[in-house]
């Protein structure tokens, strides 16, 4: 009757848990977390603190690792076996995922961390006083919650609240929808006295665009289809703000898919949690979603979540579709000049 953890939780999820608890990020990649911000001179203390999260910082490694995992699958080594092998290396002191990730990501233009720089720059251009915690920024721990490790999640959340308090942080602006939902909606349930105000980047941007006279404008006209990330539209319930921002950008035409496939009914692209345990199912979901978005006739697919952007990119590549996948941040940064 009694089963071990491995039998009830898919192994990749257990592996991610180990990485968060031991290394402080999902992938267990050792590296300078704050490197992206080195040229921005963001203060440590400000009215709002920018919460960069793990997603954009480590996404290029995920891309590399997923490709490596896919090729291992081709030669007959499944995800679980590959993880088993990397664990053996780990025991003798070699961090295989870190090496694989660095090798596969080497020489490739990093299209993800640049989004963090753009996001911080956009907030500055709109006159929002932001600071950054640099290497003190913790992992919000949300994968622990979705993988079933509630006790670890609660412990991590309480530890993080102490860190925020000790640094005098009161207001956070999150960029990654999953981190923001975790900090805004789950932390208050599990952390006593939790009183941080948490906003999502796009809400703040929409608000500031209304208050100021700034008119974003694109040099070339773009016809886009917007994919609402699940965590943004249904967890955080933010569907109007990104549309207000897009409507304010001159030269941008938004084409919506069927009403049953957008806003709070947006079809899931399969990115995020599903990738770890069911890669094949995740791939089918991605292809189906891209098809829905392409039916709008748009030539650029835009989303606002690192997991969605990566998944949609992978799916369009797989379909060999002549379409670009971008983050809303990239478009906005360009439009603000």
């Amino acid at each position, binding site marked *: 009757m*009694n*089963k*071990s*953890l491995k*039998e*009830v*939780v*898919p192994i990749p*999820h257990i592996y991610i848990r180990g990485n968060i608890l031991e290394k402080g990020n999902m992938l267990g990649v050792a590296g300078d977390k704050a490197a992206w911000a080195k040229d921005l001179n963001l203060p440590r203390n400000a009215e709002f603190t920018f919460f960069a999260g793990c997603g954009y910082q480590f996404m290029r490694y995920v891309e590399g690792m997923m490709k490596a995992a896919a090729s291992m699958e081709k030669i007959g080594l499944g995800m679980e076996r590959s993880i088993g092998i990397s664990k053996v290396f780990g025991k003798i002191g070699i961090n295989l995922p870190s090496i694989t990730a660095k090798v596969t990501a080497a020489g490739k233009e990093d299209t993800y961390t640049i989004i963090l720089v753009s996001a911080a720059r956009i907030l500055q251009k709109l006159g929002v006083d932001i600071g950054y915690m640099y290497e003190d920024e913790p992992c919000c721990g949300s994968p622990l*919650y*979705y*993988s*079933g*490790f*509630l*006790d670890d999640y609660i412990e991590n959340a309480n530890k993080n609240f102490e860190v925020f308090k000790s640094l005098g942080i009161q207001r956070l602006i999150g960029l990654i929808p999953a981190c923001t939902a975790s900090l805004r909606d789950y932390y208050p349930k599990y952390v006593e006295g939790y009183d941080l105000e948490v906003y999502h980047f796009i809400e703040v941007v929409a608000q500031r665009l209304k208050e100021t006279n700034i008119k974003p404008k694109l040099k070339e006209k773009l016809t886009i289809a917007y994919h609402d990330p*699940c965590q943004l539209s*249904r*967890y955080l319930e933010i569907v109007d703000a990104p549309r207000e921002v897009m409507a304010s950008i001159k030269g941008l035409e938004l084409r919506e898919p069927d009403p049953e496939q957008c806003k*709070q*009914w*947006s*079809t*899931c692209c*399969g990115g*995020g*949690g*599903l990738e770890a*345990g*069911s890669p094949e*199912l*995740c791939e*089918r*979901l991605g292809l*189906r*979603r891209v098809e829905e978005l392409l039916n709008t006739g748009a030539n650029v697919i835009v989303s606002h979540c690192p997991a969605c952007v990566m998944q949609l990119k992978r799916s369009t590549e797989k379909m060999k579709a002549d379409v670009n996948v971008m983050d809303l941040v990239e478009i906005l940064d360009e439009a603000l000049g």
Partner: protein
Amino acid sequence: MKTDNTQETDSIKEMETEILNNIQTCINCRMCVPMCPTYEGWITQSAFGRLAAINLHLKYGLGSIEELSRLIFSCANCRRCQERCKMLSTNVTPTDTIIKTRQLLARKAQEWGRN
């Protein structure tokens, strides 16, 4: 030591009650089925099917725990089903209940590992 174990068992019981109570409010309308992005023809690839499997397993011990785990970990946590329930004004929160069941299974396994 014994007190600790009793406490943990209580927390497992509480979680089970919470999960089952939430499933009881389902009106079996199956509107969530076409909402699920993982649905490819089998009812267990939907919130309705997953909740039914959780209910049968927790209440009557039907189906193996490994099979249940496979079903609930194939959910994308996208909450599209939950949005449908909300619109229909039922109190079911399928996605949250599926996630809670993952937490229950993990906690059970961790407890078995300790004993």
